[in-house]
Structure formats: structure tokens, C-alpha cells
């Protein structure tokens, strides 16, 4: 144990979030899942809702998110987190509920459940981590894999003629009346990380105000399955993902707009 004396003229500007446990995260070095976990935890802290928050972990690299968030959590079947969250929130309307899902989980096998949760305006928040790949199973094509991108199940690059086009979830869900706040952000650099945190906060606030379903899609990296270093992965994502997946809000309901303006 080392005690570090903090000079008297220093003030704390960043500390370990209370809504994270102390568990060491199993993610690969530089994996932005860790960044996103941190941001979610910071927002829960700032909103002071840790003790009434319930999270749903997906099947994907973040399957163990329940070890890392210091809130009550359940682990869903692949893709079904929104259905679980629906059941849970309906019987616990005073709780803050979120799902944390990858792109395979949310956009492929779980597309029906997320669409219907959004459409019903279920009062929970979804954190959607789009890393353009199936991380956990070792790098297969995701619904969000870019055209031409090589993966272990698109060995010559995604051919949109046979495999279809990358799914723009934020745009798709924006079409549904039940969604209150849908946005796409990216954690590829510090300003983006800060904007992502703002978006997450707004999404949870929308939930707290009972305005409807909210989702933050977050462009993320998977250096392991993209076969590059963590820094290089951030660059790759900026160069290739951001143009295809434009950042920004795709849906801001009137209620959320008012919320934004009230800040």
C-alpha cells in the first residue's frame, strides 16, 4: 500500500467511478468496451442512481459486464437483453434499467427485440457497442461489418451483394415513434469520449423523466479481431467507420429536446 500525498493545492478532477466494482476487466488491451463501461459508470454516479439501477449484460465480449458494474445485473440470452429489460422494467417501474449490447447481439440475432422495445417506448436505456465485428466468437462478420471488410466469415471481404449492407441501427430505430432519444457517438478520441458521456447522460435522464426508449450507439474498436494495435484501431475506425456511420442524434423527441434545452 502506497500512500501518496496530494499537494494541498491540488483538487481531484478524475477518480475511479463508484458504479464500477474493482474487478479487473478481461477485455483485450486498449479495447474500448472498457472506456464505455467507465462512461456509463460515471453517468450513473453523476445522476446518483447506482442504488436503483439494474443492468442487463449481453452475450458478447461484454458478457461479464455484471462483474464490472457495481449495480444489480442479469445476463441475457444472446440478443434478448431488450426483452429482459422490458420484463424487468415493467414490474419495477421505479428502477433505472439499461442494456449493454454488442452489434451481433443487438443488430443481428436481437433485432426484433430491440425494434419492439424501441417501438413500445420501453423506459430503459440501451448502450449499443458497434465494433463492426463479433468480438467474442473470434472475429466473424457482424451486421455492421463494413463493405469489403475481411473477417473470419467473410474471408474475401464483406460482399454486400450476398451478405447485405451494414446495418445502421441508429437510423433504423429513429423511424419508430416510441424512441425518445437515439444517437450515435464514438469513443475514438477524447473529444468523442466526452461527447459520448454527454449523450449517455442525456439518455439516462430521458429514462428518468419517463420520456421513452433511449439508445446510444457507440462506435468502438476491436483491435484483436481487426488485427491491429489499439491506437491504429482508433484511427481505422475514424477513417472507415465514421464515414459510413455518421455521428450525431438521429432522434430527439420533443420531451428530450426540452430536456436538452433545460440544461
Amino acid at each position, binding site marked *: 500500500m502506497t500512500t501518496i500525498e496530494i499537494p494541498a493545492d491540488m483538487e481531484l478532477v478524475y477518480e475511479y467511478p463508484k458504479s464500477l466494482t474493482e474487478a479487473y476487466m*478481461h477485455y483485450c488491451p486498449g479495447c474500448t468496451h472498457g472506456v464505455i463501461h467507465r462512461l456509463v459508470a460515471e453517468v450513473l454516479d453523476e445522476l446518483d442512481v447506482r442504488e436503483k439501477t439494474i443492468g442487463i449484460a449481453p452475450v458478447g*465480449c461484454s*458478457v*461479464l459486464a455484471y462483474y464490472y458494474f457495481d449495480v444489480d445485473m442479469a445476463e441475457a440470452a444472446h440478443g434478448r437483453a431488450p426483452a429482459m429489460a422490458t420484463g424487468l422494467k415493467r414490474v419495477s417501474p421505479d428502477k433505472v434499467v439499461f442494456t449493454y449490447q454488442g452489434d451481433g447481439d443487438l443488430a443481428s440475432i436481437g433485432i426484433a427485440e430491440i425494434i419492439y422495445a424501441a417501438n413500445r417506448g420501453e423506459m430503459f436505456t440501451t448502450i449499443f457497442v458497434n465494433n463492426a465485428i463479433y468480438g*467474442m466468437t473470434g472475429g466473424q462478420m457482424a451486421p455492421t461489418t463494413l463493405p469489403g471488410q475481411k473477417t473470419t466469415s467473410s474471408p474475401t471481404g464483406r460482399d454486400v451483394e450476398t451478405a447485405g449492407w451494414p446495418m445502421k441501427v441508429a437510423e433504423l430505430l429513429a423511424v419508430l415513434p416510441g424512441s425518445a432519444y437515439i444517437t450515435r457517438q464514438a469513443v475514438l478520441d477524447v473529444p468523442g469520449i466526452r461527447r459520448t458521456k454527454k449523450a449517455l447522460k442525456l439518455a439516462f435522464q430521458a429514462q428518468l423523466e419517463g420520456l421513452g426508449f433511449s439508445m446510444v450507439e457507440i462506435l468502438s474498436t476491436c483491435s*484483436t479481431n481487426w488485427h491491429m494495435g489499439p491506437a491504429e484501431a482508433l484511427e481505422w475506425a475514424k477513417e472507415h467507420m465514421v464515414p459510413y456511420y455518421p455521428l450525431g442524434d438521429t432522434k430527439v423527441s420533443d420531451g428530450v429536446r426540452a430536456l436538452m434545452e433545460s440544461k
Partner: protein
Amino acid sequence: MQEEIIISGFGGQGTLFAGQLLAYAAMDSGHHVTWIPSYGPEMRGGKARCTVIVSDEEIGAPLVRRPSAAIVLNIPSMEAFEPTIKPGGTLVVNSSLVPQRSERDDIRVIYAPATDIAEELGNARMANVICLAALVEATGVVTLDEVKQALEDHLPARHRKLLGLNKEAMDKGAALAKAGGGG
């Protein structure tokens, strides 16, 4: 003859490939052989291990709790497998990365400073074939030439240029075993 060999280390150390090389050599020299990795939780992880069984008969269990030989490329592997080797068996230790010594007197232990040797030769990643060569030499499960042949046949094209170097590394490994495994 049945030899049950565990090769264990960190991911990236080439343990799985070394096992496959042995399996190819065994197959090509007419033995029954199985190669089986221990595959991890559905997530990123550091450990890599495989079990290779070489036999004159059809192989039943492809896994063993008590191998007749092992190569350990890092400390956790040493801790895990050193105690499990069958009496009379063989242990090859990458002594560049594993400082401790075996306390067993009923097995043959070869301490191969494989990473050091490999680095000297210009590529630290060849520690695996050095250890493999030592094991092969010590156990006679296949011949060193058979392993070299397997390497020639199965080294991925992009590593072709390292063929000569790898063979040189193997010779060093085999020499170590012949010498009784100093390091």
C-alpha cells in the same frame, strides 16, 4: 508405444503450432496421433495449451491428466504440469522464462534457455521449436528429421523464409537434449 505430451505457455508463444508440428511428424511417420487444444472461455485470454498423443495403437482418450512428457514455456505452465508428469517421463522447461527448477527426481528434466537461444538466432518466437526439438530428441517419439520434414511441409508460406533458421534452432534444441539439458 504411447507418448502423451502437453505443450503449454502464453498465447503467442506458438505452443499450438509446435504441437501441430509434432502431430504432423507423427502422422507422416505412420503413427496414430491426436492433437487437442484447450480452448478457452469465449473471450480473450492469455493461456494456450495443447495435448498431443502419439501411439502405435488407435487412440482412445485424447486428453490425459498425467502426461508422459511436457514442454512448459512459462511459469504458470511449469506450476501446473511439472507435478503431473508420469514417473519416467520428460519435461522440457524454457528456462529463459521459467526460473524455477523441478524437484522431481523420477523424471528427466531438460532446461532449455530457448528464448535466449532464439533471440540469439534472431527471432524470439522460435523458442517453441527449440523446446520441441529437445523433447523429440529426449523421448524419441519421432525423429528430429521427421519434425524438420513436417516443418518443411507445413510452415505457412508467409514464414517460408524462416525455414532454415527454424531448422537451425531445432538443431540447437536437440543438441541441448543430447547434452542432458543444461541452461
